[in-house]
């Protein structure tokens, strides 16, 4: 049984009187101990998907199964034990910590709310968590604004780990950090995964980081998954034109390699005017007539890769 099993998930929102879908029929699984990447550009719905899975945003259709149980119909007290098993690390190191609480308050409150009545026990666990993420215990009595961005991310990670979750949804956790600090945080996440047996859903727009960090990756466009594959196959053999375009757009460090020509035409369509058939066809370099009439389903190929394209 998979740790996380998402089936035909949809998340809608209202805009100017219309109902639009940020997440439009997404299905995937995360196995225990896996790191699954979710990559795409702005407006693709990846962040919304992450928040929907954690039930921070209500879904409008589909199932979210954690350890076999669908948590969509659960509320309040019934949802609480499942909440403990999944946590989130956020992108913005400035906004993700309450500026008026010390690190100690932040961490110990989590424990208090979740039933750790003994004060000494809470102090011990908070101190332990802070050190596990690479900060000294003197950090406990400081306020968020006294820390750098990288240190704040560490605090955010400590907060996510306090309840010993099984799955961590990382929503662009290193995108707002400097490169040298990114490396620190990524290494920390790798170590924590190994030491604590965690599974990650790693959401990012940065292809290079996703390639390095994930075991399997899904590519999202306008609310749908267009391709998914393992780290051994997808990057060496991308099938969907969008995946290829994304990879080609990443500036290469190889000076001698010629800059590849711009691959995508036009602009991202607005969510209110999603193209008929294949959503990607308005920007696709190989679109044909069939793409306008028939939306390609996400089909699984013999090697395990999945792709939603008529020509892959």
């Amino acid at each position, binding site marked *: 049984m998979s740790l996380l099993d998402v089936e035909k998930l949809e998340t809608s929102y209202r805009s100017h009187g219309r109902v639009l879908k940020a997440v439009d029929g997404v299905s995937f699984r995360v196995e225990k101990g896996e790191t699954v990447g979710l990559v795409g550009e702005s407006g693709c719905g990846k962040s919304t998907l992450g928040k929907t899975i954690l039930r921070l945003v209500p879904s409008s259709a589909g199932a979210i199964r954690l350890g076999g149980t669908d948590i969509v119909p659960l509320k309040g007290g019934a949802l609480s034990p499942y909440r403990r098993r999944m946590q989130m690390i956020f992108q913005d190191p400035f906004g993700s910590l309450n500026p008026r609480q010390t690190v100690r308050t932040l961490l110990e409150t989590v424990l208090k709310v979740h039933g750790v009545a003994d004060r000494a026990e809470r102090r011990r666990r908070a101190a332990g968590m802070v050190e596990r993420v690479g900060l000294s215990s003197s950090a406990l009595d400081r306020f968020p604004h006294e820390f750098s961005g990288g240190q704040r991310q560490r605090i955010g990670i400590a907060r996510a780990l306090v309840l010993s979750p099984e799955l961590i949804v990382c929503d662009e956790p290193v995108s707002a950090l400097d490169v040298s600090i990114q490396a620190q945080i990524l290494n920390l996440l790798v170590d924590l995964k190994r030491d604590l047996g965690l599974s990650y859903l790693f959401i990012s*727009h940065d292809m*290079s980081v996703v390639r390095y960090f994930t075991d399997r990756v899904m590519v999202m466009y306008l609310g749908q998954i267009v391709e998914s594959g393992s780290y051994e196959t997808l*990057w060496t053999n991308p099938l969907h034109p969008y995946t290829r375009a994304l990879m080609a757009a990443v500036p290469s*460090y190889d*000076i001698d390699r010629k800059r590849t020509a*711009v691959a995508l035409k036009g602009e991202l369509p607005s969510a209110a005017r999603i193209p008929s058939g294949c959503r990607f066809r308005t920007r696709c370099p190989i679109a044909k007539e069939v793409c306008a009439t028939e939306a390609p389903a996400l089909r699984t190929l013999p090697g395990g890769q999945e792709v939603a394209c008529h020509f892959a």
Partner: protein
Amino acid sequence: MSAQGLHGETSNRPVPLLDVRDLSVAFPGHLAVRGISFQIRRGETLALVGESGCGKSATSLAIMQLLPRGTRLSGQVLFGGTDLVRADAHMLREVRGKRIGLILQEPMTSLNPVLTIGEQIAESLIRHDRLTARLARARTVELLDLVRIPDAHRRYDDYPHNMSGGMRQRVMIAMAVACNPELIIADEPTTALDVTLQSDVLELLDSLRRQLHMGLLLITHDLGVVAQWADRVAVMYAGSIVEMAETHALFERPLHPYSRGLMGSTVRLESGAHYTTARLTEIPGSVASATGETGCTFAPRCPQVIAQCRIAPPPLVPLPDRLAACRLATETPKEAARVAAGC
């Protein structure tokens, strides 16, 4: 590789377009830029690369003399022979927007939300080039075409919020090149854009640079952008330039420990490295450690630090193919070469 001097030294060369000498910028309580020097010629792209706190943005604002009141500035910024640091308001008005164009990171906040984009570009033309309103409009439409905005005639009357991020950035570029400037300063022009738009915008900027024979100061934190688009690069750390070289020289053999740390921590898509087999190189600590350091600002984080490094900051010295500010380079050039080759 060009025949001109790497460091832009003048010898019998014409005066460089931009010649920054010993520039220092001090905000109240914080020294942002510590005496840096570099040059840019017409038609070349110099990248200033570094992380937060390195002073690259302060440098770009200093060149344009756009720093907030209370900032102390020293050194010289020679633009076409005139020192902008000592220029009067009249001279600066001549230069800003007309001879030097500025492109910033966030097009949404750089554009006036209550004016159409056409009006904003035209305004620049009317004030600087003294064009009539009609001519300005015509020229603006030309510019919008030049930056590859489709349907330029109609787009003239669009407001910034009617346009996507990528389009807005092109409008910024149009504004910056409107009066045929000699130098463009682009401060993180693509950081806020999706990767598929990034290459568009950078390619546009590069082609305009060649077309209009401008100099381009490209400020970025992204080494990939530097590798693809810059002729020369200066690596900045905590307010100083630690290494400056032609791009290929830096990427083949980075010398300064910070440059090497930066390249090592960067995840490269094409390398195919995976966390299961390779660990990312970290630079331990953070740039905050540079505050108050009397020796080399990178010393607290440097893997090759020796006692001498903490006594005084190493000067930027010329080597055969670059400038580097590290004792390794100056005192033990053979050692430096070996270390660099072995990276």
